[in-house]
């Protein structure tokens, strides 16, 4: 004969214990799951080195998605970086790095190489650039490290440069890539940021020609990006629909680095 199990109504004590067991069981299980999720992310393999490198694969994906979100929803070329009176500009401009622009360079010999889409190359001299309308810009330069400084730069806007040298077709592509003459430092800029009205090819700092350590003879000043994108001593410019190589994006930083 089978034993009949008689179900008694649970006592309050038992109910409490059951719910307690269940709740803490779920709580513990979720805690363990969260912890293993974190372990997985922390030990996730690095991305395959390419245009970007040096970051855990899932984090790179997140950076790229976040870039798209902010590019589409918040970037607007009518949003200008705040400007200041010239008197507020720093007299001693902070200098962080010489990668790709060590030593001095002869401005008279220097030529800016521009690769056009039809394979043609322009070699533009310093005087040709200086002859273009000049834009002065006093803005708060921001470094990815967290410091910032109000600085005064002068040069030609990139948009004006494009117009003058007939690069309109090139400017329809997604990106512009800039490189130092020794190819030691290079940046990629999305076209909307490059054509932003405050993006300039600068040849003056505080009203004086650029010193060697600040990017002589011509450098990029782009207030909608962190300092890492403000390439010193431009040697060549090219245009592409794919992301051009970028020095710091290869070292784990966000490719976009937009402000």
């Amino acid at each position, binding site marked *: 004969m089978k034993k009949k199990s008689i179900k008694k109504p649970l006592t*309050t004590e038992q109910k409490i214990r059951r719910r307690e067991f269940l709740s803490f069981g779920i*709580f513990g299980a979720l805690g363990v799951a969260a912890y293993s999720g974190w372990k997985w992310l922390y030990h996730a393999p690095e991305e395959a080195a390419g245009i970007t490198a040096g970051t855990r694969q899932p984090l790179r994906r997140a950076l790229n998605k976040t870039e798209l979100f*902010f590019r589409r929803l918040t970037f607007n070329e009518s949003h200008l970086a705040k400007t200041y009176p010239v008197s507020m500009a720093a007299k001693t401009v902070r200098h962080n790095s010489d990668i790709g622009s060590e030593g001095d360079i002869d401005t008279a010999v220097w030529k800016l190489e521009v690769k056009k889409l039809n394979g043609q190359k322009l070699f533009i001299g310093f005087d040709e650039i200086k002859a273009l309308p000049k834009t002065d810009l006093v803005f708060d330069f921001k470094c990815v490290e967290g410091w910032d400084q109000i600085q005064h730069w002068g040069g030609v806007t990139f948009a004006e440069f494009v117009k003058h040298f007939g690069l309109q077709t090139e400017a329809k592509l997604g990106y512009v890539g800039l490189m130092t003459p020794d190819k030691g430092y290079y940046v990629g800029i999305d076209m909307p940021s490059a054509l932003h009205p405050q993006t300039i090819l600068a040849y003056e700092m505080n009203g004086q020609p650029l010193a060697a350590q600040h990017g002589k003879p011509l450098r990029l000043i782009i207030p909608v990006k962190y300092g890492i994108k403000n390439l010193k001593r431009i040697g060549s410019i090219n245009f592409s629909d794919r992301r051009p190589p970028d020095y710091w994006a290869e070292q*784990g930083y966000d490719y976009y680095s937009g402000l």
Partner: protein
Amino acid sequence: MRWTHWVNFPILGIMIWSGLLIYWANDVYTITIFGHTFVRFFPQWFYDTLHIPQRLSEGMAFHFLFMWFFALNGLCYVLYTLITGDWRQLWPNRYSLKEAWQVLLHDLRIRKTAPPQGKYNAAQRIAYSAIILMGAGSVFTGLAIYKPVQFYWLVWLMGGYHLARIWHFMLTIGYVLFFMVHVVQVVFAGWNNFRSAVAGFEVIDEQSKAVLNEKEKH
């Protein structure tokens, strides 16, 4: 409500840690009064113990992923309390300030009785509402530092880029201080209270008979 609380805990931890990795790259903040520096954020031993130095890019990558979870979780909490009307139990009322003082005296064993309370006492109302506002503050000061050109009006509201970064930093210090007091209070409040924060129910002994009191089903 319990869920968002416990989800927030690890996320905030990760945000503070990755924030430290970023802050290290420009660690300029001190508490200096009349030229004497009392606290320097942070001393070298602190960085070394936590393996902070030289990890800026890593910190940014983590920070800019978990910021989404932090903001969304906070939004869930706020929406939930608004929709259910639970915010009424939380938001301070006109008696809260006075009662909070009495609660403080009571907790410090100066006063014998605590004022009557609902789900939260007056001090809790103020503290827990403040922490939600602080969370929102972190999101907005963070946005201001993150995209200062696009959110120029936020930067302006914060009093400039420098101040926005300082607010962002101070709020974080605030969380750490809050956390310390919070944990001490939880320990004092005892097991029954902690169980309610995890399981969502509390046991109330009524005439020596335990009764299940479903305070919160959610």
